[in-house]
């Protein structure tokens, strides 16, 4: 199996990383074996001819949920209804409702499922790595009437997932860990990328999203951006995959940032006074709302306001199909080598 990286750097002990890799490999395997799809295994890019380097494209989009029918306050408060661009956030306020901090996450729930599958200690250690000082109880993490100590690994992971929207360390009451909105899943990212890699010239590439049925939300920022980019790569006779570590990275904050009237390069982590910090390999971003901080001339009043200037990205790796190993090319789903790669993680 490919040596998939730990995107957050906290999948410990090794069993957690192994569990995560296994779930990831299943996604790669499912879509690499999809007939006619240019999507393939990462292993294939390690077999390019000498001198051929894979191309990495960053597909970027705005974190602001363009489909949301609510105003900024409603978008903040109804996270699981509106925040559907693979970015979710928690807004912390003072007693008189002034924003103190906004925390954005793009980490997938599957990451913490892997920790939960190993055990409570691993999960809590992982949570504390993200939220220092966190002291979650079992009920907070898994809900009532559940004993993680006697449950199976699958049972713990499943329960953690199903309770993620009530978990106060994730739903914003005490913190935010990872994505939990129904469309913001690792599986959704793969389910979009794999089918979008099937060349379909019956429509312009920019309209490919509309042909993918419920796998692609045509009115969102994220899904059409990914689908169009992937379709264009496939049309350019390139085989492709989600670059390791697969996921969504926080890229930059746009807009005009000032503090007490003085311009700030908010993305310059060395000179922004610690106001904006990205961590966990681009999976987490924290904005501290210091006195006098403004965005486009306005004080910071909601997370959605900041999200409207936040860009995130997914990276797609590709190479000309002619340069790819024979076994990974379109139409080679039955090849022995492909199935060896597919089976490397277990049942294929």
């Amino acid at each position, binding site marked *: 199996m490919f040596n998939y990286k730990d995107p957050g750097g906290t999948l410990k002990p090794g069993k957690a990383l192994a569990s995560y890799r296994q779930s990831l490999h299943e996604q790669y395997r499912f879509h690499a074996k999809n007939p006619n799809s240019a999507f393939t295994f990462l292993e294939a890019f390690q077999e390019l001819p000498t001198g051929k380097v894979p191309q990495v494209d960053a597909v970027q989009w705005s974190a*602001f949920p363009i489909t*949301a029918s609510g105003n900024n306050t409603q978008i903040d408060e109804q996270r699981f209804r509106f925040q559907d661009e693979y970015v979710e956030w928690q807004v912390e306020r003072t007693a008189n409702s002034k924003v103190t901090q906004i925390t954005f996450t793009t980490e997938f729930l599957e990451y913490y499922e892997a920790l939960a599958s190993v055990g409570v200690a691993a999960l809590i250690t992982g949570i504390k790595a993200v939220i220092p000082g966190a002291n979650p109880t079992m009920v907070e993490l898994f809900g009532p009437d559940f004993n993680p100590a006697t449950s199976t690994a699958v049972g713990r992971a499943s329960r953690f997932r199903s309770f993620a929207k009530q978990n106060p360390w994730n739903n914003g009451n005490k913190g935010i860990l990872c994505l939990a909105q129904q469309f913001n899943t690792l599986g959704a990212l793969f389910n979009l990328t794999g089918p979008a890699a099937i060349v379909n010239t019956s429509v312009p590439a920019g309209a490919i999203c509309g042909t993918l049925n419920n796998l692609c939300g045509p009115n969102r920022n994220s899904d059409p*951006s990914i689908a169009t980019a992937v379709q264009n790569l496939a049309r350019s006779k390139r085989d492709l995959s989600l670059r390791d570590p697969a996921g969504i990275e926080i890229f*930059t904050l*746009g807009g005009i940032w000032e503090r007490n009237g003085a311009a700030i390069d908010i*993305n310059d982590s060395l000179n922004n006074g610690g106001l904006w910090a990205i961590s966990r390999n681009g999976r987490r971003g924290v904005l501290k709302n210091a006195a006098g901080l403004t965005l*486009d*001339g306005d004080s910071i009043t909601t997370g959605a306001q900041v999200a409207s*200037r936040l860009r995130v990205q997914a990276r797609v790796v590709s190479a000309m199909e002619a340069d790819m190993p024979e076994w990974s090319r379109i139409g080679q789903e039955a090849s022995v080598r492909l199935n060896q790669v597919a089976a490397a993680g277990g049942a294929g």
Partner: protein
Amino acid sequence: MIRFSALALVLAFTTLSAQSIKKQARDGAPQLAMTSTELSVLGDPLFRLVLKTKPNEIRFDEVVRLLKGATGTEHFFVVDEKIIDPAIGQSRRAVIGFKGSNQGLVLVTNVMLSVIFDSNTVRPGFIEAWGWDKKLSRYNYYRLDKEGGTVSWKFRGSSIDADKLTQTQRNGTCMACHLNGGPVMKELPFPWNNWNSFQSQSLYLTPGGAGHWTIAEGSHLATLEGAESMETDFILPALKQFNGRRIEQLTKKNADGTASILDGKRALRSLFETTEFNAISSDAFSGLHPFQGSAPGLPSGVVKVPDTFFLNANLFAGGKVTQYQGLGIDQARDFALVLVVQPAEYRKLVNDAATKLNNRLGDSSFAWFVPEASHSDNHMVDRLIINGVITQQFAAAVLAVDVENPVFSLKTPALLQFIPKTFRFSPRDNDSVPTPHPDELTKAVIAALQATSPVAGSPQADFLALLKAPNPVTVLRQRVQAYLAREQAALANVATREAELNRLFDVVLSRRQEALTNPLFKQLNETGNLLFAVP
């Protein structure tokens, strides 16, 4: 001898470097030396990082390098009315933005360049540019061209008082297109018709794309981004900043805590008149673009007509990408679902109208491409409300007069005359309670309207009645709901649908014609007959 020649070259270069850029009021006008005083006030990044010390730097690559410095980044955007056509031998317009900072100057939204390139190279000797001068709250405009015989930079004016210029005063200046003085991006909203975007990627501009242009392999196109980034990272923030400063410049703080608007008609013009326009469309490709490289076909899907075609949904409802506070009339967004044109219906509309681009039958890249109320105007109105200059009720009263014409209204401009030269208001911020209706301005306008005894049924009479209503927002909401119900009924009924479709498409065509022929706006059509498809 060699050493002498080298010295002579150094001396010559020093002399050239010591020169400064010239100023030129308009195309063809004399190029005049700038005084030290004039030069000393230029505070934008282009001048401070490049032209101040290297006024003779005419190489695009070097200008970009000097602007970026060690830590800034280049962001390349491409627009062209024939962007859909990958054929080699054409030229394209590029807009280059920057992020990060250089020598302590934050670059994002503060400096942009525009150049022309072909399949091989950026055209030498031509750059248009603007830079934001934070201290003076103005955009400075520059142009590198060959006017005067040799390629040189010229200062081409600033945004100060741009909105006051007459058409004659604008001719040949940057303000012929920058109508209010700020940045212009006509196709600002999704799907950014004519721009390279995620929705319409120009593969020939990417190094991995089949049949890509040679220039795509260079360093500039390596920073190619979609117009969606141009919209949210550059233009929306820039205009927001600019409008905020424009209002500040028209405002005087009073000793009693109130404030006064110094030129009421100027400050409120965006509420009554179309001072700029943007262009919106459906997200469906029309399949009818004459340069699409394939035979005319059907749209790529159903044509969902945008809500902003029917009314000013962005301002009425607020929210969404533009982040307006708005008027809280959420029903305006229901218009996004009121008209879904089937592909065959759309093709018939276009064919029946016999619209043309570049004298060839067809349609724009995206279907239902039409001018809409501009972000510049809408944000100005929203900012006036947020700042307390006007109330939501006052804005609603104006907008209710002509709900169905969100752009190029013929009714509301005539109402601007009733705005007093100056008026007081209570400044507010996000948290403060708005001044109750009717405020001082509303009372003054009511008095001015009553003094003219407006004829029943006229826009003036309607405006007066609206201002006197207990809550004009409620009246506007009722008009929106009635309009919605009427459109839904007309479009749902088989007997009336075709006629209503034809009527609405006629509205599309008339707005396109207005954009192309109105003396104020026709300068924005840089390609003759490629911007809007018209009969």
